[in-house]
Every structure is written in structure tokens, then in C-alpha cells.
């Protein structure tokens, strides 16, 4: 099992370089290389699941090679209960992206596939790095392919969107880097584990917490630094939107769990209200914003912001739970919910963006008003779209339900009002999603373009079908996922409630 994670990182990157070298002239071969590589990556990631020891919170499948001896920086990889699901999710979601772009991308297709493959490797690197320097290396490197994806294949305002995307994330990340280096100077090494154990005064923790917050809040994105997301989503090509929503946003949530809580627990305890307030604003206010959107992608983008609000809420209610109940019983439930919500949102939002992509490829419009009565011409597609929409609203039996439910229960333990506002999303989510479905899918055929629609082809059916199965399986039987995360979350709660202030 040794070296598995390295293969997961470098195989897609190598394949991406090969596709790039094959060029647009040999794009037929390039497409197959991309598909084979992405499927191979998923298959190689499966032994991680089957060999994962669910009784320990420590890192597994560890790789540890010297990288920069002078800085004590290692090429260190490993996964635990919170990174493994995201690694597998990344490997899984790249396949639909490759398939969805199969014939749709006409300009510079080789670079398109190469960019996504390289990105897959880098994202897996982010989730599996155990060395903060390596983490940051992947975290930033990933901006390059995404910048190009939005800028080259995006819509009319793509340049604005992509530069905004890059600068927002870059701004946040630079301050995180400063915090990481500060801790390196204190700890003498870059290992994340050492950072988690490093004693820090409250003042230091506050600064570090704020630096992390800048990086992760932009990535999640949290209100009020979410404004890059709707722009980026609207202008990105379908594949770009899928990866953005399904994986990249998760990096912010992952960062909170991996860095903010364990590295700066005292500051987190002190500032948890800030995060909770911002999360609830995202859930409620952004929910209202989503309702009035005219553009399908923008609507789903805002819905992503609202759903990610649940992730940050779930991660930070732990302190109020401990305060209220006086014990650690059930304190990890919010984090459980946050993790399930991340995986579920990855599947559901990815699927919804693919649905929009299916419509866009046919009609070349994302405006809701250009559609209506799609079900008459595309019954199979309509079934999928309705399913994903319901999952987005958190219908029991779909994956969306599990995460939201866990977070709402956990926040109820913390405070009635948290859960009250969090539960508002059940109404708002239903309002914007179902209204979207009603206007696009149902009703009489709206115009001539809709009248000429053809139903999903085999390629699209496979993509949507696989995602649908995943959404339902996770909804009905989340137990394996929860069990996988349990020791890690438990350990995380211990770290989060302990104090690191030196005596």
C-alpha cells in the first residue's frame, strides 16, 4: 500500500502532461488518455477505502521523504478520516468532468483535459499533505489551472471573473503563508502535526486564526467574501463549475478542520461566534439572494454559498455544545454533519452544474426565462434534475438530508436560535430549488428552442446516473462514511476543546 497517495497525485498530473504534449491534433487519443487516467485514479483510490483502519485517528498510508532538509520540510503524505472522503470524492468527480467535456469543448481541447487532470492531482495533494509547506504548495499551484480554465473556456465576462477569483484566493492565501512561516520559525519544522501541538499564546492564536480565516473564508466562500464565486461559476465552463463547487470549496472547510480548530483552539473558542454569525448570514441571507436569481448557474452558486454555511456552522458549534452540555458527548456531531455536508454538496452541486451544462450545450443559454416545459422533450433528464434538486433541498433519503440534519441537531444542542436560523434553509432551499425546477422543467413548452430539445445521450446518462446512485446511497446508508470519520472527529474535538496557551 506504500506510495498509493503519491500515485494518486502524480498519475493524473503525468497524464495531463501527456495530453498536453499530444496536443489538439491528437485529441482523440488525448480524450482517451484523460478518461483512462481519471478512471485509473479512482480505481487506485479504492484500496484506500478498503484498507483504511477505522479504529485510529492517526494518519495512514504515510509517506515521508525529505524535501528541503534545511527547513525541515518533508514530502509528507497521509490520510485520516477527514481527508480520505475528500480524496476519494476528488478522484470520483473528475471522471464526470472529463466525460462531460468529451465533445463539447471545441477550442484547445487538449489543454482543457490537461488542466483538469493536473488539477485533480494537485487537489488530492492538498487533501493528503501532512506537511504545511507541501499543503501550501499544492493549495496555491491549483490556482494556475483554474485561472486558465475560467479564463480560456469561460463565458463573456470570463476575464473579470477569473482575475477576481485568482486575486481573492491569492490574497487570502498569502496571509496564511505568513502564519505558516511564523509557526515554522517557532516550531522549527513544517509538519502540520507539530503545528497542532505547538503551544501558542492567545494573542498569537488570534493572529493565526485571522490569517487562516482570510484564506479559508475566501475559499469556502463565506459571506461577505463570497462575491467571487457567482462570477466564477457563471463564467466557467461546465467542468470548471463542477470542480469549483464539488472540490475547491471543500478545501476551505477542510482547512478549518485541519488548521484553524486544532492549531488555534483558544482563538477558535473566543471567535466562534464570529464564524457562526457569518455562517448563519450565509445560510439565511444568501438563501434569499438565491431566490431572485435569473441565471441557473448563479442560482446554484448562491445555493452553494448557503450550503457551505452549514459546513462552517457545523465545524464551530462545538464550543457552544461543550459550554451548554458541559461534556464532550455529541460534541462532534456538528463536525460529522459538516463533513457529510461537504461530500454530499460535492455530489449534488456537481450534478446540478452538469444538468445545467446539459441544457446549455443544447440551448446555449443559462437564463431561466429561456426554458420551460423541458420535461416534455427530455423526460429522463427531467427525472435526474428533479432528483438532484430534491437532494439540494435536503430531502430525506438523499445525501443532502444527512448533513443538514446532523448540523441542525448539533446546533440545537448549542443554541435554539442557531438551529432556528439554520432550519430556515429548509424552507429557503426548497423555495429557490423547487421554483427553479418548476420554471425550467415543468409547465408547457416555452419556446421553439425547447421544442427542439433532445433527451440525454448515453454519455450524459451514465454521468448523471452514477451521481444519482451516489446521492441516494449516501442518503440511505451514510454509516460507512460516519464510521470512517469517527475516530478522527473524536480526536479533533479533543484538540479543539483543549487549550494550547503555555502556562
Amino acid at each position, binding site marked *: 500500500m506504500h506510495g498509493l497517495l503519491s500515485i494518486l497525485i502524480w498519475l493524473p498530473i503525468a497524464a495531463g502532461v501527456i495530453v498536453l504534449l499530444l496536443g489538439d491534433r491528437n485529441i482523440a487519443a488525448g480524450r482517451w488518455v484523460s478518461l483512462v487516467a481519471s478512471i485509473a485514479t479512482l480505481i487506485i483510490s479504492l484500496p484506500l477505502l478498503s484498507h483504511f483502519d477505522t479504529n485510529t485517528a492517526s494518519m495512514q498510508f504515510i509517506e515521508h521523504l525529505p524535501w528541503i532538509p534545511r527547513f525541515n520540510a518533508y514530502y509528507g503524505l497521509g490520510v485520516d478520516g477527514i481527508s480520505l472522503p475528500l480524496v476519494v470524492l476528488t478522484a470520483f468527480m473528475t471522471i464526470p468532468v472529463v466525460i462531460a467535456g468529451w465533445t463539447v469543448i471545441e477550442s484547445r481541447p487538449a489543454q482543457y483535459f490537461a488542466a483538469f487532470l493536473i488539477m485533480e492531482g494537485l487537489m488530492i495533494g492538498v487533501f493528503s499533505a501532512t506537511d504545511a509547506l507541501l499543503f501550501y504548495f499544492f493549495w496555491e499551484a491549483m490556482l494556475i489551472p483554474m*485561472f486558465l480554465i475560467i479564463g480560456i473556456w469561460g463565458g463573456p465576462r470570463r476575464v473579470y471573473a477569473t482575475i477576481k477569483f485568482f*486575486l481573492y484566493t*491569492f490574497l487570502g492565501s498569502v496571509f496564511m*503563508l*505568513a502564519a505558516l512561516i511564523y509557526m*515554522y520559525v517557532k516550531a522549527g519544522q513544517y509538519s502540520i502535526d507539530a503545528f497542532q501541538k505547538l503551544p501558542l499564546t492567545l494573542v498569537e492564536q488570534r493572529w493565526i486564526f485571522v490569517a487562516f480565516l482570510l484564506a479559508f473564508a475566501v475559499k469556502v466562500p463565506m459571506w461577505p467574501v463570497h462575491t467571487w464565486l457567482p462570477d466564477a461559476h457563471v463564467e466557467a465552463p461546465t467542468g470548471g463549475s463542477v470542480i469549483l463547487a464539488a472540490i475547491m470549496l471543500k478545501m476551505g472547510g477542510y482547512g478549518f478542520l485541519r488548521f484553524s480548530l486544532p492549531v488555534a483552539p483558544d482563538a477558535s473558542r473566543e471567535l466562534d461566534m464570529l464564524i457562526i454569525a457569518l455562517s448563519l448570514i450565509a445560510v439565511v441571507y444568501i438563501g434569499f439572494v438565491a431566490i431572485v436569481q435569473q441565471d441557473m448557474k448563479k442560482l446554484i452558486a448562491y445555493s452553494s454559498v448557503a450550503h457551505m454555511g452549514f459546513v462552517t456552522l457545523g465545524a464551530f458549534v462545538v464550543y457552544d455544545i461543550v459550554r451548554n452540555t458541559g461534556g464532550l458527548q455529541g460534541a462532534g456531531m456538528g463536525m460529522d454533519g459538516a463533513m457529510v455536508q461537504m461530500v454530499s454538496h460535492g455530489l449534488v452541486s456537481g450534478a446540478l452544474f452538469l444538468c445545467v451544462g446539459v441544457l446549455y450545450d443544447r440551448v446555449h443559454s443559462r437564463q431561466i426565462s429561456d426554458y420551460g416545459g423541458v420535461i416534455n422533450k427530455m423526460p429522463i433528464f427531467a427525472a435526474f434534475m428533479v432528483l438532484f434538486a430534491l437532494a439540494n433541498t435536503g430531502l430525506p433519503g438523499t445525501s443532502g438530508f444527512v448533513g443538514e440534519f446532523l448540523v441542525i441537531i448539533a446546533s440545537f444542542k448549542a443554541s435554539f436560535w442557531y438551529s432556528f436560523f439554520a432550519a430556515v434553509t429548509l424552507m429557503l432551499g426548497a423555495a429557490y430549488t423547487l421554483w427553479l425546477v418548476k420554471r425550467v422543467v415543468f409547465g408547457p413548452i416555452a419556446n421553439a428552442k425547447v421544442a427542439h430539445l433532445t433527451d440525454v445521450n448515453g454519455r450524459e446518462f451514465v454521468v448523471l446516473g452514477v451521481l444519482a446512485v451516489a446521492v441516494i446511497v449516501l442518503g440511505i446508508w451514510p454509516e460507512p462514511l460516519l464510521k470512517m470519520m469517527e475516530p478522527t472527529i473524536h480526536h479533533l474535538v479533543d484538540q479543539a476543546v483543549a487549550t494550547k496557551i503555555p502556562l
Partner: protein
Amino acid sequence: MLDTTFTWGSLAPAVAEIYLVAAICVILLVEVFAGEKHPRVIPTLTLLALAIGAALTVRFGHVRTHVLLFDATYVADELAYVLKLAAYLIVAVVLLYSRTYLENRTILKGEYYVLALTALLGIFVLISANSLVTLYIGVELLALSVYAMVAFDRDSSVAAESAMKYFVLGAIASGALLYGMSMIYGLSGTLNLEEIAVRLHEPVSPGVILGLVFLVVGVAFKLGAVPFHMWLPDVYQGAPTSVTLFIGTAPKLAYFALALRLLAHGLGPTVIEWSQMLAALAILTLVVGNVVALVQTNLKRMLAYSTISNVGFILLGFVAGTPSGYAAALYYTLVYVLVALGSFGVILLASRKGFEAEELDDYKGLYQRDPMLALIMLMLMFSTAGVPPFVGFWAKLRIFQALWETGHLWLVIISAAMSVVGAFYYLRVIKLMYFDAPVGDLPPTARPMGVRAALAVNAAAVLVLGLLPAPLLDLCSRVIH
């Protein structure tokens, strides 16, 4: 004291300079007799001479310790060895990149190459200087050669104007430097840098501080730090691009050595004073360089302001005032030079006879016209912006690290924020090349295979050193200690 018995072998550490003087004489003679008839002889001969020089330096010039020569006015140490080899390599690459450009502008003349070599000699002298006089000789030898190079295209009025500006402002800088040196000499009674470091001690007299101010101004002028940067954009823009390439690369190593030998070593006892001065200069430089670069429409001018902002980072390494900080500054300088080589190399290749590809708009849609050139430029721009996996990231990281080690919180925050501002204009170049369609009838880019291969190696180095940064980082730390 010094070894009084003279043997030829004792000169071995100075082989780089001695050989170069001989080579310059030979090339001048060849130029006189064969230069007119065979214009291609001199470029080839120069590259050959540089290769031989590097080989001789490796063979004879390597010293493990600190060797003083010529009545202790000259120092050979590992730092000098590394910097000289780097300068050999850089000048060779610069001349390789420039050849087609010079040919197209009918300024491919032997004198150009001789001037480049005398400038290189100035760089060497500066790198190995251990006395105020040696420093000054190095500075002037380098500066005078470069003034002539800027004015080399004698039919271009813009170039002549730039050369004039450069000369006048450079003379003021030399004056400031010389004036400061005279005060330090007067107060310490010695020209020898190591001796000065011994004789100056806390509390330093106001006279020393006054002299120090002039020295810092001189160094800031040479490096192009704000507010002494006015010459830099005009010279970068006005000079023939091949000369801009030269000015923007090899001399930076020399000026790094100037700052290190003069401030960090010679005036080491006054580190508290000069590091405060440099901190103020660095902040100004970072802010002005980055903000003004945002509004440029000319790529050469934009890169000039980018240079200024990078100088700000190099100064920050000195502000830390520790060996780790100097090592960071050295690493930053080397990385900056590597990337600048490539960036100006791309401009040289994009230019054709009668067409200077120097406006930003000339790069619109470069990807469609020349994917390879665009890809190289993309890597270089991301590197300068400090985005991994490229080497520029490590340079910035190293500076941040040095600043944290000395607890400069606000400098870290300011420089981090400024590197985000800087990212914008680098991204704009990528945007023009990759996202925009080409406009008008631009001539195709130049395709000499050798130069392209060299440029590809240059870009590959930016990536490889980014993936495996350890060897160069180690080297920089070792030679400083």
C-alpha cells in the same frame, strides 16, 4: 600579516579577473583585424571565451576559505566564487539571446561584446572587493560600460536620451557613494572593509551616520530603490531590448555584492541604523513599484517597475540584518535574475526587424501565434508573482522567513499585501497572451532554434528549481555563512 613571498600560484583565486582582462584584449585585437569582414566571429568567440573563463574559474579559482589578495584590497571566498560563475553563465545566456536582435538592428558589432565583457569585469571586481577603492572601481567600470551599451544604437534618439539620463543620474549616485566613502575613511582611517568593521563600534558617531546615509543612497540608486529609482524605467524602456536584458540581470548580482560587502560586512556595526533606512526604502519601493506597474502599457516599462518591486524584496532580506536574511536576499537575487533573463528573452524573440514587441498589446493572442513562447512567458509570470510550483515562490517564502525570524510583523504584512497587488499585472500579461485574440498584422516571432532551446531550458529551470528548491537554498545559505 600578509604572505610576502610572491608566487604565481597565489594569484589563482583571482583567475576570473586576470583571465577576463586577457580575453578582452584578445577579442579587441581580433575585432580590429577580422571584425568587419566576418561579423559572426566575435559573438562566437565571446561565448567561447566565457565558457573557457568559467572552466578556468572552476579549475583554479575555487577557494574554501577566505583569501585576501593584493594588500587585502581583494577578497576571494565561496560567495565570490558562486557569484562569478553565475555571472559568467548569465552574461553568456544574455549574449546568446541578444544575437538575432542585434543582427536585425545592424548593431551586431564587436565593440558591443567587448563592452559586455568589460561590464562583466566590473561585476567581478565589485563581487571581490574588500576595500572602498576596489568597490568604487568596480562600480565605475560596470557603470561606464553599461552607459555605452545603452547608447550603442547611435541612430536611436530614444536610446541616446536614456543613456544621457542614466549617465547623469548614475554620476550623482557615484558621487554620493564616493562622498560617503570619504567620510567613512576620514572617521575610521582605513579603506579596508574588514578593518572598518573592526574600528567602528557602538555608539557610532554622527559623522559615521552621515557617511552611512550617503552610502545607502548610493546603493539604493544602483539597485533602483524608491525614491532613487527614476532612471530605471526610462533606461529599461529606452535602451535596446538586448541591453535592457543585460542591465536587468548580471549587474544585479554585483549590486547585491555591493550591498553585502559594504553595508553588511564593512558597516556591520551600524546594522541598526542602516536596516532602519533600508526598511523605509523597502516599503516605499514595494508600494511604488507595484502600484505604478499596474498602469503601464509598455511591457518593458512594466517589467522595469516589476524590477523595482523585486528590489524591495531584496532590500527586505537586508533589513533582517542576519545571515539568514542575507542568504534570503542572495537567493531572491539569483531567482529574480533567472526569471528576468527569460522574460526579456521572450521580448527579444517576439521582436522582429523593424518591430519592437514592447507594447503590452503586442502580446495579445500570443498563444495563437506562438504557443511555446506564450507558455514560457506564462511560467515566468507566475514565478515572479510568487505562485508555486515555480521558483519565485521560494524566493518570497525565504524573505518572509527571514523577516519572521527577526520579528518584523508589519513588514511581513505589507510585503504580503504588495505581492497580491503585484500578481495583478503579471496576470494581465497572461490574460493578454492566453485569453485575448491577436490584433492586426503582427510579424511572426523569431525562430532561431538554439535560442528557443536555451529559453526552454531557462523556463524548465524555473519549474525544476521550484519543485526541488533544496540545493539552491542550501548553496545560498552556505556561501553566506
